[in-house]
């Protein structure tokens, strides 16, 4: 392992580490645009210049590997002057449209201009004009004038997705990023180029003009779009509710986790959070169907549900849990069904269309917590029916009550007529979920649950990695976390007091399920931890 000195401090780094990463270990920031730890080295931007040893000229840190005994200085007058000159070149043709640029506030050109800028411009000529507001694909829009030609987006499409839609065309100061003829930036990971673009050249069409970035707040989270469980940041806006049509969640951004998604996220996940602020959200516990529907309080609803569960024989009741529920919810539900002796428990419903899958991130299983449901054990218990069996039993009037969580059965692979017939034959049908769907109008009791950004919890991804998500916004209306609804009903059935927080539920889960033994919220940290899969 090479040992080198950076700004007078010694550091030992693994062989093959470049000087940017070596300096980062010491907390020294070397500015750069074109370098990205997930992409090849291009050496395009020339900003990461540092003094190495007795070399007469500064060298680029991104393409210089740490060597034993190297002496690196990052703040010498020569280096600072070089940075200023490089910044001057980058800004020669950059338009002064920060106020209307969506990147303003998170733009590295702005940040490094403040640090290393030449505040008195010497450029007197007319700037080169290039195409503005060019849609490159369904999610990305290009402003070629703002581009500094770092080529990160080109390398992303070449190296990560392998689709190669983008290239740099023309020469000299007329160079610009563009699409190859006949191509469209429509690969399933296209919007990642927006994240890696250090300036405002590539911006998100979905987020265009929606919210200025300085209004946004951030919560760490996990993508619920598939069983990969990519780490994300939820960017939400509560300060200016009139922006973005009142939607609180403005965008989802990938969060670096080397074990799961590295720096990336797929477009389906990135734009898959729209249901949070959708008009179809269920807001209040509701009794009765259609015109007879009546919103009631939880103090009336909880005893009603408890009475139904108590008054029917366990074999007349079916519970269809969902792999969209968090581990905490599933554990409280498992305790509830065990307490009541209900054997008809399942969580698997085959989707109507098989999910797409690739070798990068996307998994065919579009549920975030299938593995968690398996580990916690919500499969049919001895003598119990599975999901399809429950519907058949309902049609044959052997099953009298059904409690469905989140699933839209009409979007499943099963024939819709069978499902409708089964649901109509029931004495009672409780639907618990965050949004109205195909079957929720058939329910005579609706229990509104909070979405994943409105609560805390954990998902277990397909590898058995348990990952935390944090609360970003308040649940709307009277909706509650699934675990809290279930715990309140459990309390009414004499199962003990409601845990105060999701963490308490996770503690009992860690104590009660061997796979989760030894795990705690503190242990999971920001990046999660593997459950002990037997």
């Amino acid at each position: 392992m090479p040992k080198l000195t950076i700004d007078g401090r010694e550091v030992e780094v693994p062989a093959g580490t470049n000087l940017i990463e070596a300096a980062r270990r010491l907390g020294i920031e070397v500015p750069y645009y074109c370098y990205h730890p997930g992409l090849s080295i291009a050496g395009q931007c020339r900003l990461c210049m540092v003094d190495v040893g007795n070399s007469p000229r500064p060298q680029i840190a991104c393409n210089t590997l740490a060597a034993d005994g190297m002496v690196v200085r990052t703040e010498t007058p020569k280096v600072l002057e070089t940075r200023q000159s490089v910044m001057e070149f980058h800004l020669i043709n950059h338009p002064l449209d920060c106020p209307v640029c969506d990147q303003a506030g998170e733009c590295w050109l702005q940040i490094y201009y403040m640090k290393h800028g030449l505040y008195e411009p010497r450029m007197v000529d007319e700037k080169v004009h290039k195409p503005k507001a060019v849609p490159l694909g369904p999610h990305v829009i290009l402003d070629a004038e703002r581009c500094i030609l770092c080529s990160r987006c080109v390398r992303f499409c070449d190296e990560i997705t392998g689709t190669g839609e983008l290239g740099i065309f023309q020469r000299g100061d007329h160079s610009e990023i563009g699409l190859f003829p006949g191509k469209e930036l429509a690969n399933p990971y296209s919007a990642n180029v927006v994240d890696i673009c250090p300036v405002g050249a590539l911006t998100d069409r979905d987020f265009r003009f929606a919210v200025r970035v300085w209004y946004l707040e951030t919560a760490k989270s996990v993508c619920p779009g598939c069983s990969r469980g990519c780490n994300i940041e939820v960017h939400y806006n509560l300060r200016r509710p009139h922006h973005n049509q009142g939607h609180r969640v403005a965008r989802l951004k990938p969060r670096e986790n080397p074990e799961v998604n590295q720096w990336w996220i797929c477009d389906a996940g990135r734009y898959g959070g729209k249901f949070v602020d959708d008009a179809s959200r269920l807001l209040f516990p509701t009794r009765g169907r259609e015109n007879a529907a009546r919103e009631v309080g939880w103090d009336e609803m909880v005893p009603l549900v408890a009475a139904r569960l108590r008054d029917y024989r366990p074999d007349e009741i079916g519970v269809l849990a969902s792999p969209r529920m968090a581990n905490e919810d599933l554990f409280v539900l498992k305790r509830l069904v065990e307490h009541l002796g209900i054997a008809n428990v399942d969580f698997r419903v085959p989707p109507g269309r098989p999910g797409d899958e690739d070798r990068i991130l996307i998994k065919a299983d579009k549920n975030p917590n299938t593995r968690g449901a398996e580990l916690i054990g919500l499969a049919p218990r001895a003598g119990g029916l599975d999901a399809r069996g429950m519907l058949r039993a309902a049609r044959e009037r052997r099953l009298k009550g059904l409690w469905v969580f989140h699933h839209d059965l009409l979007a499943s692979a099963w024939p819709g007529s069978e499902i409708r017939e089964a649901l109509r034959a029931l004495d009672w049908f409780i639907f618990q979920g965050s949004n109205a769907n195909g079957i929720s109008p058939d329910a005579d009791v609706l229990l509104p649950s909070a979405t994943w950004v409105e609560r805390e919890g954990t998902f277990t991804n397909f590898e058995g990695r348990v990952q935390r998500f944090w609360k970003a916004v308040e649940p709307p209306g009277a909706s509650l976390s699934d675990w809290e609804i279930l715990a309140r009903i459990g309390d009414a059935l004499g199962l003990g007091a409601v845990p105060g927080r999701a963490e308490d539920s996770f503690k009992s889960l860690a104590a009660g399920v061997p796979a989760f033994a030894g795990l705690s919220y503190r242990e999971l940290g920001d990046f999660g931890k593997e459950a002990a899969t037997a």
Partner: protein
Amino acid sequence: MKFRQRFYLAEVLIGLGVTAAHFFVNLGRHTAHHVFGRKTVPGAVTFQYPEERRPYSPRLRSLHRLVRREDGSPRCVACMMCETVCPAHCIYIVAAEHPNQDIEKYPERFDIDLGKCVFCGYCVEACPEDAIRMDTGILEFSSYSRLGMIYTKETLLALEPAGPDGTPRSPISIPPDRRP
């Protein structure tokens, strides 16, 4: 002290004379006002508002207006600088795509809630386009409802700057729900 001033009486008489002169001048002015209807004759110290106005300073911060381009559209590019800097959170802007790509954005909605505004003028200072000014000279915009205090983009665009002496040149717009 002068010799004359030592004699108390003479000074008293001079003082009475000044007071009496003011009295009779004002008597004449107010008679002109109230009996003969000569409203342009100035009163003693009282400005006969609203017929008579003090000259406003050119630096006065009065009702906001949105500056227009030549084609009458707002010069504003919906950058939200004023909305961000506003300490009272009284500016509400919703941005939309401008047909001209060089302009990029325009405000689809630009509302100022004057019920919240503290007239600090930060919005004017923050604006990179000189699109909002507080130079209409209008200070009268009370309302019978809170809604009436919210001035929309159309209202703000229609306002003109004040004249050289600070008198408003645009009619003081009264939203329909502001009338009693």
